[in-house]
């Protein structure tokens, strides 16, 4: 391994480490219900997107995810995402009042630099949610983010969340992914 290869590897490891810390910090924000802070992780032109996951045969796996332009489960711009957070603060968003107890476990990070300022980052997650007395959900899936480097650190410019579910076995998706 040449010196320049070593430097490249080191810088990749550095980036991976930096982004892993970013995702760990994000998970704590969500689980500690610091949603206003969480909202600041997104750029103003963000698309927070969760396509539908279809049940298809193996030879049609290219159709497994609904495409952009088809109906998605989430397709929020910053305004819609902000409304979701603002709503919680009214004290009358009954789906989350009393609030869910969540635990976001995020890992399996893969980083793909696009340019000096932009990276793609893929993670897997398990989200446990407990609500009211005995309601429980476990959501598993992947997230693929486009991250932009800004003066205030990394910001999420696009998040695509893919749930490992066809029919969602939950009364609602009032928690964040």
């Amino acid at each position, binding site marked *: 391994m040449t010196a320049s290869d070593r430097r490249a590897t080191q810088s990749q490891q550095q980036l991976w480490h930096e982004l892993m810390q970013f995702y760990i910090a994000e998970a704590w924000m969500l689980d500690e219900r610091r949603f206003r802070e969480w909202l600041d992780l997104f750029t103003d032109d963000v698309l927070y997107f*969760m396509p*539908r996951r*279809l*049940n*298809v*045969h193996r030879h*049609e796996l290219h159709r497994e995810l609904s495409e952009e*332009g*088809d*109906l*998605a*489960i*989430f*397709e*929020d*711009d910053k*305004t*819609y995402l*902000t*409304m*979701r957070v*603002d*709503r*919680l603060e*009214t*004290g*009358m*968003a*009954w*789906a989350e009042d009393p609030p869910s107890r969540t635990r976001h476990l995020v890992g399996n990070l893969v980083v793909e630099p696009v340019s000096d300022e932009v990276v793609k980052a893929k993670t897997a997650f398990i989200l446990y949610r407990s609500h*009211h007395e005995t*309601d429980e959900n476990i959501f598993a899936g992947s997230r693929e983010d486009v991250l932009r480097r800004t003066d205030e650190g990394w910001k999420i410019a696009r998040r695509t969340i893919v749930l490992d579910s*066809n*029919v*969602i*076995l*939950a*009364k*609602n*998706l*009032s928690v964040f992914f």
Partner: protein
Amino acid sequence: MVAVNKKYEVIDPVTGELDRRIFVDPDIYAEEQEKVFGRAWLMIGHESLVAKPNDFFHTYMGEEPVILTRDGKGELHAFLNMCRHRGNRVVRTDRGNAANFACAYHGWTFSNDGSLEYVPGEEEAYYGGLDRGSLGLIEARLETYAGIVFACWDEDAPTLSEYLGDARWCLDVNFNRLDNGTEAIGPIKWIEPLNWKAAVDNCSDNYHVPTTHLSTIIVQGRHLGIPRLTHEQQFSSTNRHMFVNGHSLTMRFLERDDQARQTHGINPQNREMFEDYYRGTLDEAERRLGALRARRLQLGNHSLFPNGVLGLRLAHPRGPMETEFWHFVLYEKDMPKELKTALRRGSANYNGVTGVFEQDDMDNWRGVTASGLSRVARKYPQDLSMGVGRAGRHPDLPGTVSERYTSESNQRNFYLRWQQFMNAESWADIPLEPRTMEYEGTATIRG
């Protein structure tokens, strides 16, 4: 209360008292699968979901798994998803394109027109004696209204046109405005822990909006410039609720005749685009629907008996205390792409499993459902007395019309309709209101 001779008397139309057991009792649930879902015309999808020959879309009629197909000749069919041999499902995917469906158990293969085409070992194992002609997929009756597909198991049921009756006069205002018709996208599917009737009756419940949905009303005002509902609008507006043949309908009278009809995706940035579009379609809509319906009326919350919920959205029963919800979005095909995007995003943000309106409904309907489990609560019926005696005929609107926009008239009538189905021996015992409205314009039930 449920009497011994199995004659259901669950709702008192004079006091509005409703028996809570209809939401939780497994025997009542089993019976309604037969007597309500086995008899009624059920919404199952939209023609655009099977646009091309050999397309199929997997759907449900109540609990029954059903394949909606467009055969090679372009004809639509609704088949029970069941191999005639042992009963396995022949389709296991959400949708696709296939000329035939092969059962994964023994290989019996059915054409998408329902006929049994191929049986492995037909000559040897069955000695050529199998009557393939009588072993096609079980087919339901199928009819469409403005592209929306309905199916029905009961040979004695009236036509879809008679079943909808004057409800269509109201529905046309949303679903049948333009020559090019509508297309459906979706659905988003999720399971709610509640009885399907609690979700359907809420479509007539304007009373809950300022309480259940206040958080969203506040933030929509802040971010989208949508004005707060006033006490006046809520309780004394001239808008009306109607009830026809089991179907609940709300009509709003528009202030201006070119007001945009769909509001879910409207925000200050795209309001002009919406209004331009509607203005540009008014003449065509008037030719199809007449001036009153094209220019002055807006369809509000509505449900189609038994389980159609706010447009092409379905509440499939999955047991007394479980309902699988399907959220589709309908566009008018003529809408420009940017308008479709705004509607699609707005609709998913508003309703559906993530919707900021709909997510607040679930625990209410679940609470209503679960109260039926309580032995104490059962002694105290639900109170649906709002507006008793305050509904009747209206000179300009069909069906039974409530005097006020906020009234429980439609909920009482919904449970009375349910009771008519449950007590009927056959369709001969189920009354239908005659059509009374003038269907001005050129629109037909087929679009």
